[in-house]
């Protein structure tokens, strides 16, 4: 059975490579669209809704 430390090191190595690859090798994606705030405006007199 492998020792815990080797699990951690191998997991960290895989994660680091994945992180590097996701940031450096893949071109940034264009935004899918724009997000529009649709929340009901909370009351401004300090009282809670309802």
């Amino acid at each position, binding site marked *: *059975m492998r020792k*815990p430390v080797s*699990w*951690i090191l*191998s*997991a*960290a190595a*895989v*994660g*680091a490579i*994945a*992180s590097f690859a*996701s940031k450096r090798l893949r071109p*940034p*994606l264009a*935004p*899918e*669209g*724009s*997000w*529009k*705030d*649709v*929340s*009901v*405006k*909370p*009351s401004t007199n300090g009282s*809670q*809704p*309802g």
Partner: protein
Amino acid sequence: MTRVAVLGSGGATALLSAVLKEDPDIETVVRQDDLRSSVGEVDLIIGPWVENPEEARDTALAAIRAGRPYISPSSSPDVVEALLGLGSKAQSARTLVVAGMGWSPGISSLMVKSAASSLDTATSARVSWVASSAGSLAQSALSRALGLLTGEALVLENGKRHAVAAGERPEAVFFPEPVGWRMLRLARAAEPVTLPASFPELKNVVVKGALTDPLTEGILRSAGRMPSMGPLGSPAFSDKLLRVAGKVRPNALPWSAVRVDVSGSRDGRDETVTLGLVDQLPNLLVAPLVAAVQMLAGVPGARGAVGPEAIFDPEDFFSRLAYRGVRLAALERASERSP
């Protein structure tokens, strides 16, 4: 005036108690480990964040026996299913159990209800979440993420529920800024259990999740593949690993996010409605429970065991979340914008 018992221990429970104490409509907030004392002295009980369905069921049964409404924040599909199974007991006791009142399910469920209300028929729902590994609740957030991104995930496909390996089917999903694009994978989740009960036309429900930091997520998912027997599978070792993972990137993005895509038809045309929101995880855990406590006063005759989408009005819910700073946004796709 409402007297509320908040069960459990930990950072989220402490934060919830503190926030509820600020509410002028809440008379007292009792924070305790279990229901053995003072169950008769409160009007409403908020259960603990637990993963064990038997423990969750026992606690809910104690509340039912006392005839008190019970709200569970647990996201585990096993816990949610166990609590929904208490429907007849809650009906007989003329009280209510709300299962899955967290951020996913919970906020996500009411986002689906809101999106579905603008369609004539809703046939598919995809719930996506990304959880920050930074912040005051990082340890518990990581612990829950480990449980949700490993093991078996439930999905509803073509009207049939089945289990697939969590962590499969990677897909890039776009969240409101500053979270933006994230790579998500299938997650263990309760929405495939709860949503079809309220929306029988939904034939496809999938839930995908990720941590904001891919390095921490890689470590967690590797941990989830360790043998369950022996020293590597012990809870003490898992806790140690989670602490290490939480410290790897202390400066990770502090924002967590939820997005739902509900597809169906409107006026005879195929349509997808997409809603999203971003906030810090402590607020996403606590705000839906505070809203639920306030809203239960408006449904005094409710009985049985239900998911949040079966009982709460999304417009009222999201106005209460907005009061706590959690704002709902709709995705306007580039192709949909008017010239």
